[in-house]
């Protein structure tokens, strides 16, 4: 196999000197130097596509490019000095949609579960920065784990929404064809949907398209046909993850935030726990949901079996004034589309809308050497904006641009398994699109892997699957709003004028199990600061509430995790101190 790979690799990438090795699990490791990051990615993808290759560990470097690498040593040193701080049954690394979903699933059992995350809050990575699409499963390769879990996850979402109380809108997705040449593409997507088992896909004609989306008539399009997928859903991703985390915590899961896992302890093929910067946690199981860092965590567990290459995507949210024309996510496949198409691996998102009825454009898809590179760029924004088909909407309507990094591996499939090398270590890696849609099925699959192994776990008697319903002032009628304020006057003070978020809602968020301590964490819980002024008016008010409720100084309140303080000092603090001394 190795020789065959070497030959085909040399043919495909002549002039690059690469070292290859293959292990007994058909994991290929490649190293060597090339001239461009894209080549690194291309070699990885090429190898992963070769027959018999399970996955690729890509250690290639680029001439003249320093690829940032996280240095875990200082974290490990700090943690080891503190020694063992906790013993648990399960440690879940990473508090994104997978980590929190799995934590909640396993909280049904009599288990001591800890979820760690390096950030100050749950949902700060890829789970936050995406477009909240619950894909039906028509754009995944049949036969992959992705396809299976996407379909299953999609079907499980309503239950999650019902139990946890987050908004889920089955808005449907429609592809409208206006150029003959694209009809086969629509048919192919439909066929893939059928093969994958997507719920009730439908080929449609112009009449049906107009019935589904009457506003299409205004566009004056030559509709040849199209495909309709009613099982396309839309959520606010941070709402889902915080609801999962809150419910998991309600059922006894402990969340350790601002905690970086620096080593995975293992001995004789058995996982023993993790070393974090806050101390050592001994555990029988370690579940790796570390997003872009999942490959590194897996390597720490002695199981180097895939490499994550970050693929960033820029998104743009438009002002509410620019009302979405369509209820569904509607794509018009025309000649422009043919030009805009990138390679199959890097396809980006489309024009959709949030459940708050704002247009949402993107994401783009750009490979980046730095996993933490969530910078927006002009080119990426242009890509996102090109997904817009509304002639009235454009750059002038943007209220927010943001960017997330997809944790893709080279097989472009999910890696979910009990490690065959280190028993007790479960990989949940390379969860990129449609990871959010697949999340409920991923949680269930990990539960099964866990139960197959840990046979004697008991179900909790008092497990409560229901999340607390949030008060959302903006969605109430005037009478309901009045009644609410009469009952609790704190709902009468609007803090965020753009999104009409009240002090009561912010205080509710602060009363939760996982206390949001930064301005952005409050934003994800309540929408305060998410509107058109982007916190220009409400940031000082949110900061004041946070300082007051958490008993902190104003200067101690941060925008997000890490060193992100908003205010440095009181005015003339130095001068005043000087006065005291003199």
């Amino acid at each position: 196999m190795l020789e065959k790979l070497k030959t085909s690799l040399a043919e495909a990438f002549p002039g690059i000197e690469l070292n290859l090795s293959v292990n007994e699990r058909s994991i290929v490791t490649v190293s060597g130097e090339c001239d461009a990051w894209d080549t690194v990615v291309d070699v990885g993808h090429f190898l992963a596509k070769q027959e018999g290759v399970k996955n690729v560990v890509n250690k290639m470097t680029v001439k003249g490019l320093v690829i940032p690498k996280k240095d875990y040593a200082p974290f490990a040193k700090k943690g080891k000095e503190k020694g063992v701080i906790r013993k648990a049954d399960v440690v879940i690394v990473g508090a994104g949609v997978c980590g929190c979903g799995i934590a909640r699933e396993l909280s049904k059992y009599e288990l001591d579960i800890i979820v760690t995350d390096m950030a100050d809050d749950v949902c700060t990575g890829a789970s936050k920065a995406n477009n909240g699409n619950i894909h039906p499963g028509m754009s995944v390769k049949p036969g992959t784990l992705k396809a299976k879990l996407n379909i299953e996850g999609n079907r499980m979402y309503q239950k999650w929404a019902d139990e946890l109380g987050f908004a889920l809108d089955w808005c449907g997705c429609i592809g409208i064809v206006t150029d003959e040449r694209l009809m086969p593409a629509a048919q192919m997507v439909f066929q893939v949907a059928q093969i994958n088992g997507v719920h009730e896909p439908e080929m449609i004609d112009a009449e049906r398209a107009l019935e589904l989306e009457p506003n299409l008539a205004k566009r004056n399009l030559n509709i040849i046909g199209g495909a309709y997928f009613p099982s396309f859903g839309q959520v606010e991703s941070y709402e889902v993850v915080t609801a999962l985390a809150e419910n998991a915590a309600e059922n006894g899961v402990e969340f350790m935030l601002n905690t970086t896992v620096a080593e995975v302890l293992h001995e004789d093929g058995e996982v023993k726990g993790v070393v974090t910067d806050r101390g050592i946690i001994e555990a029988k199981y370690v579940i790796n949901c570390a997003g872009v860092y999942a490959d590194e965590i897996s390597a720490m567990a002695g199981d180097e079996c895939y490499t994550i290459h970050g693929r960033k995507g820029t998104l743009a949210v438009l002002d509410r004034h620019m009302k979405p024309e369509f209820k569904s996510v509607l794509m018009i496949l025309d000649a422009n589309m043919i030009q805009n198409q990138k390679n199959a691996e890097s396809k980006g998102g489309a024009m959709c809308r949030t459940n708050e009825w704002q247009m949402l454009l993107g994401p783009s898809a750009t490979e980046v050497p730095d996993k933490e590179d969530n910078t927006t760029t002009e080119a990426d924004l242009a890509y996102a904006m090109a997904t817009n088909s509304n002639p009235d909407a454009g750059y002038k309507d943007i209220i927010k641009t943001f960017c997330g990094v997809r944790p893709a591996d080279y097989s472009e499939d999910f890696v979910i398994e009990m490690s065959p090398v280190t028993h007790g270590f479960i990989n949940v890696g390379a969860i990129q699109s449609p990871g959010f849609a697949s999340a409920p099925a991923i949680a269930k699959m990990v539960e099964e892997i866990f139960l197959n192994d840990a046979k004697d776990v008991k179900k909790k008697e008092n497990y409560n699957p229901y999340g607390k319903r949030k008060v959302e002032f903006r969605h109430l009628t005037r009478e309901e709003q009045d009644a609410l304020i009469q009952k609790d006057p704190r709902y009468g003070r609007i803090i965020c004028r753009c999104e009409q978020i009240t002090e009561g809602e912010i205080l509710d968020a602060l009363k939760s199990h996982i206390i949001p301590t930064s301005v952005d964490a409050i934003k994800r819980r309540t929408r305060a600061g998410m509107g058109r002024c982007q916190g220009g008016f409400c940031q000082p008010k949110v900061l004041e509430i946070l300082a007051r409720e958490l008993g902190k100084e104003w200067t101690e309140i941060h925008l997000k995790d890490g060193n992100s303080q908003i205010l440095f000092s009181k005015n003339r603090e130095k001068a005043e101190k000087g006065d005291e001394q003199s």
Partner: protein
Amino acid sequence: MKKLEYDIAVIGGGPAGLQAALTARKEGAEKVLLIERDVELGGILQQCIHDGFGIHRFGKRMAGTEYAQTFIDELEQTDIDVLLDTMVLEVTKDKLIYACNNKDGMMEISCKAVILSMGCRERTASQIQLMGYRPAGVLTAGTVQRYINLEGYLPGQTAVILGSGDIGLIMARRMTLEGMEVKGVYEVMDAPGGLTRNIVQCLDDYEIPLHLSSTVTKVHGKKRIEAVTVAKLDENKKVIPGTEETIECDLLVLAVGLIPENELSIGCGVEMDPKTRGPMLDHRFMTSIPGIFACGNVAVVFDLVDYVSRSGEVAAEGAVAYVNGKIDEQPEYVQTIPEGNVNFVVPQRIAKGGSAKVQMYMRVKHPDKKTELEIREADEVIQVKKQAFVAPPEMISCEVEVSGNADVVVNMKEAENE
């Protein structure tokens, strides 16, 4: 739900709203209500502790707070009702206002006339497509002003300012006085965005460099801003390769423009002017919905508070006339038409037939010298005013007597030789 009735309700207690409420009462409206979302009246003036306010109106240089207090003191001598810490959520075309606070709950306020004076907000990093990371330490100038002047905290030590709007210039001086270092002001356009007097008094006096035709192309720093990349722009506003420079800073202040805050206006369905981003107004500053008026920065972004107050008077006089049944419910209009170097004129139209003294405000498209403002009605020149110097940041104001029988053309052209 609490139900209230007023002759005139004014939304927003900044300089425009304060003046509008006072004038409305003075002109004879009996029940006047002023609604303010903040905990005190004065609007943005409460954080404007610098001087330069009131030169036209009071003939002296006052601090913003002092200017506001003059009106607040006057208001306290009247029977005008004031609701503080109260947010208006909705205004209907039938002049019903829904507002709430934590004492009264939700209120339904029915009025004979409504005056909109909600002010404006600042353009943000995303709106100007600022690229790179989104760390702490990127703030709009007004937010920085609030933190420093009202809350008493410094949001950084070393600042770069993007945009030369007036608040940015004022803050350049303010931050310097607070011991912070301001490394420079970067302006995309080839001319400053703020008033000349602010360039002189806030930058030149403190040797803060102003870089025209320059911008910030990238924000560095994942958590807290660490630096910005700045670059020179060519005449098409494209980055000139090789001019990029990285400047270390821990604060980026954005002074990149103001947007009239017209969400309530749009909500009740008034016709908008895409140029001013305010409602289409007639000579009484009445919107397209009879009985709904607008003044201050919600109508058009002014640069002098004196003009803002004046617009409040005009709107209030109109509102009282409306309450007294003196305004047609379906008015017909002639238009004001900008010509030459004139970019826009407020008001955008004048009631047909009724001769009137009209307060006009306008901005030019580009800087010019030795120009002449010529106002024509049909073919007749009704006013000529020489202007030694004009520039987009400096709003021009004039009062014109019109007949209302023909469109009024407002032209800015080269001055004729004497």
